[in-house]
């Protein structure tokens, strides 16, 4: 399956052969149940895949694959299309041999099996996860053609797990002295990140094993990963083996060399964690072609690491004029929100943008506004308004505007 032309209802003489000649599926017996005990998408959907961005990384084990946002609906990301970010490759770990240790400022360091963790009271919550480097290629100039590559280090799932605070309390944590938590993975990189205690205390941070109703996928940390809502993906430590309560932050490699944001004066911001309010139009978006003039439903995603999306405005004239879009229920905290707005395309060039606002009142900035404060070399935390140029030919292009 590769590409296909435009399917319109054929100009009816007698009528469309797709109607007049009954298709074979109307005239035959189909396939039985459980051809697949675990089913797959249609063969016609083979173009909907996660993908690497050519040349972005030097190896494929310290790399990233992007979710095809341009082809997704609603807010749930199918687990098979969840973006990947590995630092030392992914593993499929035997869960019966996996252990979780809690140590540091606790009365007794403790060890848990998966059996034990899964016996504890769990919660299930919908949250987005976004890599801090998402849209990072676009700080300076347009670098990639589609929203898969500009915004595809973004996914959203229903996560199930045990609030981290429950495990800390079980170990007799000293919650006065303990002001930071270190999370550590079991893979080669043994990723370590300092986790904000405020989110632990609020019960938001989860030691999760479930994702979209089943266990986490191996690429996403099976059998255990930390879920740190609103915070960049690197903190959602995969293959989680250990949690340490401490009185100081850890300054780990991914807190001191990467995931630090370079400002124009040569200073790096350290421990930048929150993914600020952001949005992107996914339909239509870069690399697509509109088939025709006429009615379109502009659709996209909005999110905020600080809470709920309150409003999304959409412009089709490059930011001069804006209309407020419809938000799809349920609007959940630190979760993707789907928005839609009607548009009749007159065939003339148009620049489509979306601008989200969260319930703290924060407004997603334009690229200009963002650069005025942070310059163009931060790599991380680019949450600027995205622009898509619809050309007369119907082709949609990734552009930046003044």
């Amino acid at each position, binding site marked *: 399956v590769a590409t296909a032309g435009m399917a319109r209802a054929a100009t009816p003489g007698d009528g469309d052969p797709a109607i007049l000649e009954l298709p074979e599926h109307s005239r035959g017996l189909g396939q039985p149940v459980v051809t697949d005990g675990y089913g797959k998408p249609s063969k016609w959907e083979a173009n909907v895949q996660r993908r690497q961005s050519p040349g972005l990384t030097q190896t494929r084990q310290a790399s990233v694959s992007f979710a095809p946002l341009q082809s997704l609906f609603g807010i749930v990301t199918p687990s098979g299309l969840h973006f990947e970010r590995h630092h030392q490759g992914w593993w499929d770990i035997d869960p019966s041999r996996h252990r979780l240790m809690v140590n540091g400022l606790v009365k007794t360091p403790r*060890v848990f099996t998966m059996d034990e963790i899964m016996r504890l009271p769990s919660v299930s919550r919908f949250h987005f996860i976004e890599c801090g480097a998402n849209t990072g290629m676009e700080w300076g100039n347009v670098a990639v053609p589609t929203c898969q590559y500009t915004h595809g280090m973004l996914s959203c799932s229903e996560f199930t797990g045990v609030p981290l605070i429950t495990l800390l309390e079980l170990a007799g944590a000293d919650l006065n002295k303990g002001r930071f938590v*270190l999370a550590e993975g079991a893979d080669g990189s043994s990723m370590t990140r300092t986790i904000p205690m405020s989110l632990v205390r609020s019960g938001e941070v989860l030691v999760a094993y479930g994702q979209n109703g089943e266990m986490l996928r191996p690429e996403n940390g099976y059998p255990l990963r930390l879920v740190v809502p609103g915070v960049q993906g690197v903190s959602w430590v995969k293959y989680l083996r250990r949690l340490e309560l401490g009185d*100081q932050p850890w300054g780990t490699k991914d807190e001191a060399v990467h995931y630090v944001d370079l*400002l124009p004066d040569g*200073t790096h911001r*350290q421990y930048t964690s929150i993914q600020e309010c952001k949005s992107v139009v996914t339909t239509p978006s870069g690399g697509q072609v509109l*088939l025709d003039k006429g009615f379109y439903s502009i659709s996209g995603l909005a999110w905020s690491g600080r809470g709920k999306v309150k409003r999304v405005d959409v412009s089709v004239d490059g930011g*001069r*004029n804006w209309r407020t879009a419809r938000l799809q229920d349920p609007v959940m905290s630190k979760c993707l929100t789907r928005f839609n707005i009607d548009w009749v395309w007159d065939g003339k060039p148009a620049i489509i943008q979306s601008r989200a606002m969260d319930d703290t009142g924060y407004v997603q900035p334009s690229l200009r506004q963002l650069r005025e404060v942070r310059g163009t070399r931060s790599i991380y935390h680019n949450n600027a308004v995205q622009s898509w140029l619809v050309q007369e030919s119907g082709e949609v292009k990734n552009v*930046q505007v003044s």
Partner: protein
Amino acid sequence: QDRFPGIGRAATPAEVKAWDIDVRPDFQGLPKGSGSVAKGMEVWEGKCASCHGVFGESNEVFNPLVGGTTDEDIKTGRVANLKRTDYPGRTTLMKVPTVSTLWDYINRAMPWDAPKSLSTEEVYAVTAYMLNLGGIVPDNFVLSDANIAQVQQRMPNRNGMTTAHALWPGGELKGTTKPDVAATACMSNCKVEAKVTSLLPDHARNAHGNLAEQNRLVGAQRGTETTRPPGA
């Protein structure tokens, strides 16, 4: 404990020792030991150079680790090249403010294809060697738990970090609560030019593969046939 009878057990000291390997900026967690630059060169050339280059300069499998720092930086604790927008890359030594970070990371994750295979001495040594490549310690230096705090005082970018921002949730790092960028939601006749300032050149059209094959075969739009020039 009472609320959840039968769940979890105490970790043994040997277990904690096996896994609690992190080293903090205040060197909590750093095992006693030492390693020389000379030994470090051996380790480096045997176990690291194939990926990172003999001088840590290779960008074959990752960004260069070494380069871009000066003696002046070691004095000020600020890497001057980080201010320059024309400086080509940012090496590890240009960015890393804390020597603990190097020790901890090499110890847990390197060599990339055999992480956690180095002895404590090897980690001290190869860290010393990297510092030496950056001119931070002399050729005859022996890095140890006793002198690492002094070395920290020579890290080129030790003063290069700030937590004065609003992106840490909570007050522990004494950041700000007000976001740095304050946009407003203008709704009509907003003061923008709406001129295109950047877009991909036509010759890069197919650089990410044929976009027609990266979009669904039905829907309100198709993927662009990027194997053909625009409009063709």
